[in-house]
């Protein structure tokens, strides 16, 4: 093809642009005494990694906390989001538009608009500074993604399959377990990935509700990033990227292409 060379060139530029900001982070994480105008670090050192991985820094502990919070928020979101997605995907009913609007709202309204009020409520409930409080708070931005992705999944779901299973002798619970769940699983995974990532990168909600006591990775990273330790920041950044990449790798194939969910209503 004629344009192949040109396309590859453009593609290469794109690829470069996509990884460029990650390169200094990686270099910084092993750099020592890397000051302007040195193009590359004069010395390499593992001290940043040693510190980041040590118990003192709390980075690994934060990693655990962050993963737990994101996983719990995702699971909770799936629990309430799957039925809701089914209702929105399969039924036309009065007020459907309004419900959808309400569901999208938390994904679009800036977090600060919610954080202040939520903080006030959670204070009274004694939920501030607790992991559970943070998980609940994360549900607000996470739920829209889960629900809307599931709505798109169910919109393309043929309930005749469930009827078919019943007709073949499956009880309702069996139908869900053996037919519905496997059928929506790819979509559910996509929804879960987005939910996970949304919770994963929350900053302001965690800061306000967690009150600093619930130290998720973004908070830790922010502390280091604003204290001038570029090497530690680089190491923590890489640690922070890793789980998302893993989650993506787990379901990479499902994310590509014709996922209707992705096409319709995905964001953060």
């Amino acid at each position, binding site marked *: 093809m004629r344009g192949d060379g040109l396309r590859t060139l453009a593609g290469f530029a794109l690829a470069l642009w996509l990884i460029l900001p990650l390169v200094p982070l990686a270099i910084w994480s092993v750099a020592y005494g890397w000051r302007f105008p040195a193009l590359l670090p004069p010395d390499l050192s593992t001290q940043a990694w040693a510190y980041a991985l040590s118990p003192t820094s709390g980075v690994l502990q934060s990693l655990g906390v962050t993963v737990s919070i994101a996983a719990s928020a995702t699971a909770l979101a799936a629990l309430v989001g799957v039925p809701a997605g089914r209702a929105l995907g399969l039924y036309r009913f009065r007020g459907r538009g309004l419900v959808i609007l309400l569901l999208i709202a938390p994904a679009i309204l800036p977090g600060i608009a919610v954080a202040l009020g939520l903080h006030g409520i959670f204070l009274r409930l004694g939920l501030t500074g607790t992991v559970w409080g943070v998980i609940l708070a994360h549900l607000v931005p996470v739920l829209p993604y889960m629900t809307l992705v599931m709505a798109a999944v169910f919109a393309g779901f043929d309930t*005749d399959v469930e*009827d078919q299973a*019943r007709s*073949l002798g499956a*009880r309702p619970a069996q139908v869900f377990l*053996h037919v519905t769940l496997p*059928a929506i699983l790819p979509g559910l995974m996509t929804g879960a990935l987005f939910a996970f990532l949304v919770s994963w990168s929350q900053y302001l909600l965690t800061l306000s509700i967690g009150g600093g006591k619930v130290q998720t990775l973004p908070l830790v990273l922010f502390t280091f990033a604003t204290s001038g330790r570029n090497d530690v920041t680089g190491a923590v950044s890489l640690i922070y990227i890793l789980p998302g990449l893993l989650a993506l790798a787990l379901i990479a194939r499902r994310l590509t292409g014709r996922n209707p969910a992705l096409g319709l209503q995905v964001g953060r």
Partner: protein
Amino acid sequence: MTALQLTGLTKTHPGGNLATIRGLDLTVASGTITALLGPSGAGKTTVMKLVAGLFAPDAGDIALGGRSILTLPPERRGVVMVFQNPLLFPHLTVAQNVGFGLRMRGLPAARIATQVDAMLGRVRLGGLGQRRPDELSGGQAQRAALARALVLEPDLLLLDEPLSSLDPALRDEMRSLILTLQRDMAVTTVVVTHDQTEAVVLADQIALLLDGQLAQHAPPDTIYRRPASLAVARFFGGVNFLPGTAAAGVLQSAIGPLTLPDSLPATLANGPGTLTIRPEAVVLGPGPTDANPRTARVEGCAFLGSQSRVDLMVGTTPLQALVAPEVARTLTPGQTTLIALPPEALWIIPLGTEAG
């Protein structure tokens, strides 16, 4: 023996203001195939789902083998429905799909495997058990869906347009397979279709559903030759309709008196009615003298493949004939020809059935 009996079945879909099914009575004999025929939207699928227990009727009863199954959940009715699309479960292999119902019943894996293997052989899918559904062709998928239902040896098998998703070529093959399996296993079967040829070829009995009610229920050739109403006649491709008044075995019509068959029921043979004759029953050329001969002008011929359509005009009354292409080839538009309307091919539809 009566296998399935529907009595006064009525169903209005939520949101619909008209009942989809209105007081439907239908009896299906054990071991036979009944084709449920009707135009799109007539409610065929609705009837099937009512019987399968996937919809609940508003009124009426459904009995299987003499006992009402109305209160039973779908999984305990002994009724298996096969949908228009194969609806194979995509996450299971073909063998797992076919064994699905047995697994739901809690059968041991070994027995499931044996039965599934046997069944796959019967539908000529032997060796494909380990494939994924999306690795099957359309015909193979539909066969797998059939196997999945038949392996349960249901009391009643409901097939909802099992052929309409297939290529014409595959359709013939699948049709014979269904026939063979049904005869072998003697499963009482109701098959939905909106294709009349399919119904004719497949079924022992045809039940024609029009406007939520049973328009006629009879063996195929009866329904072709002796339609109960104009609507039934039209649905099966009837085109020749001659209004008139019958008396003493003769109908007075726009093309003169026509001798009626002796076999015509007395209720039809007297009084006003619409005479009908199938286009393929119109004889071109001189027939016997008692066969209502007429002179007709040939208006045009159209080659249709294995038949040709001949448009005729008897006086000012149009008639259509279906003849062998060889016959049609001898005709030229504008010529006159002798035709015959054999009395035994004539039928009278009483007035007032137009709406039925």
